[in-house]
């Protein structure tokens, strides 16, 4: 089936459809990971977005049962140069096109993803659409221009009800802004007794559980759209050790007086070098963010910059100067990507223990 990919700036690509045979509209972004497409497609942080994979062959090891980052993927589309329809891998349970078909997500192949990526780099992430090649193109462009993308992604992907992920160790509350399963996996490896709570939980509800530590999860969209989080974070910081990842990092910065901005094309991929300022140590990290914390806005806030991206010097981690709380913009839980920074979960555990010792 012939499909068209339309961009907000008027560009049109012709390609071949795979996965679900539906039209779709979303924000187009690109990710640079060579592997890890299954983790990316199921990552709730991509909610509402169409993912361009810059690596030319996608799907060659299929879909397995172990690498899911959510139960229901919420991305809007998958854009590739070439899709593999007959994967080969010992873990493979399904091909990528079959998986997308089952999940109702459209894909398009045969796209020159190099050119597409350059366009996104120049114009920034923009609205895009996948339609049948039989549809009226000029009408579709008009529709695309008129489309207003939703800003309620967090409400869409967060859990409605609190649920436990029992363990025998420290009590951790995870606030689900669009939680990746790998965060729970890392906590489970450390035997934590986890309670996952919805994004609109209040500080009182959390403190009532008397947790040893609270995690602010990753998630999709603009942090400024997650209104209740500021009061929530201000209500718990200083009372319980905090660790935030990705959206959690941005929300934590906002709650402490920082500001965020939309990056032109964001950081998405699994090879982003990040320097830990205290030690000078460089880690290669998995990242997926379209917003970042503005450096100038952190002056006169109680936050200390702890990590920086090496390529563009953006802020990748902060720490509170008076409270036991630190957050990172990248994904220490990897999935997909390198495990260089996985020790941050150990640091969180050590911070919890040190805090307990004092109180």
């Amino acid at each position, binding site marked *: 089936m012939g499909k068209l990919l339309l961009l907000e700036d008027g560009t049109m690509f012709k390609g071949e459809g795979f996965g679900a045979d539906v039209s779709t509209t979303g924000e187009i972004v690109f990710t640079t990971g060579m592997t890890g497409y299954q983790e990316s497609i199921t990552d709730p942080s991509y909610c509402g977005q169409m993912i361009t994979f810059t690596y030319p062959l996608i799907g060659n090891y299929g879909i397995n049962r172990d690498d899911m980052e959510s139960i229901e993927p919420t991305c809007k589309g998958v854009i590739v140069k070439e899709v593999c329809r007959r994967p080969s891998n010992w873990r493979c349970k399904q091909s990528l096109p079959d998986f997308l078909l089952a999940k109702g997500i459209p894909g398009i192949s045969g796209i020159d993803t190099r050119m597409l990526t350059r366009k996104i780099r120049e114009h920034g992430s923009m609205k895009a659409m996948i339609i049948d090649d039989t549809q009226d193109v000029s009408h579709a462009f008009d529709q695309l221009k008129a489309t207003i993308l939703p800003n309620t992604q967090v409400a869409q992907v967060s859990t409605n009800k609190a649920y436990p992920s029992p363990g025998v160790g420290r009590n951790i509350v995870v606030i689900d802004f669009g939680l990746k399963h790998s965060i729970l996996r890392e906590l489970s490896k450390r035997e934590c007794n986890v309670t996952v709570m919805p994004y609109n939980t209040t500080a009182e509800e959390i403190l009532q559980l008397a947790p040893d530590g609270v995690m602010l999860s990753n998630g999709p969209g603009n942090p400024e759209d997650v209104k209740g989080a500021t009061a929530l974070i201000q209500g718990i910081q200083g009372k319980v050790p905090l660790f935030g990842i990705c959206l959690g990092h941005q929300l934590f910065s906002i709650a402490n007086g920082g500001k965020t901005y939309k990056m032109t094309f964001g950081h998405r991929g699994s090879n982003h070098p990040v320097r*830990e*300022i*205290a*030690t*000078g*140590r460089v880690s290669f990290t998995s990242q997926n963010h379209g917003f970042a914390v503005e450096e100038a806005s952190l002056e006169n806030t109680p936050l*200390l910059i*702890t990590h920086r991206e090496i390529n563009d010097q953006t802020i990748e981690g902060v*720490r*509170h*100067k*008076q*409270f*036991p709380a*630190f957050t990172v913009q990248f994904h220490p839980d990897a999935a997909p990507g390198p495990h260089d920074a996985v*020790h941050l979960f*150990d*640091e969180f555990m*050590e*911070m919890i*223990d*040190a805090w307990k*010792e004092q109180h």
Partner: protein
Amino acid sequence: MMKEKEVVDALAMKRALTRITYEIIERNKGVEDIVLVGIKTRGIYIAERIADRMKQLEDVSLPVGSLDITLYRDDKGKDMEATADLTASSMPVSIEGKHVVLIDDVLYTGRTIRAALDALMDFGRPQKISLAVLVDRGHRELPIRADYVGKNLPTSTKEKVVVQMEEIDGQDRISIQK
């Protein structure tokens, strides 16, 4: 036969030092008045490493002093006095009215720290003294506790805690021997 078990590896040790640095920032409004004082050999290296991290993070160079407490010990061995060096302690700035963070590798009976407090007082009267240690192994014989602890290590008195540091031992690790 001596059995040795590694309890903290190089990475975890660096992490512990970074966390102590963050905690020093966390619990002090402004680090300008702080003087780091390491207790001979490994305490000094730990103090220098914390100062390095502080420089990177806050862009302030904290003064690092060193203390040789041999002469102040209450449990002097027979050959200790012979090896004591009167000039081994050094203080780059006056500690009068400052906040001294005393730093050692292992906190055990607390006698070293008591001696260090004596030694420190001979240099002046700090406004405040706090204590940072890489390992707290318990079994205190004096009413002393650390403000910043890298790792709490429950041990028996029969065991020996060995801290190794790259600067002097060629590697970073903490192990228990028994």
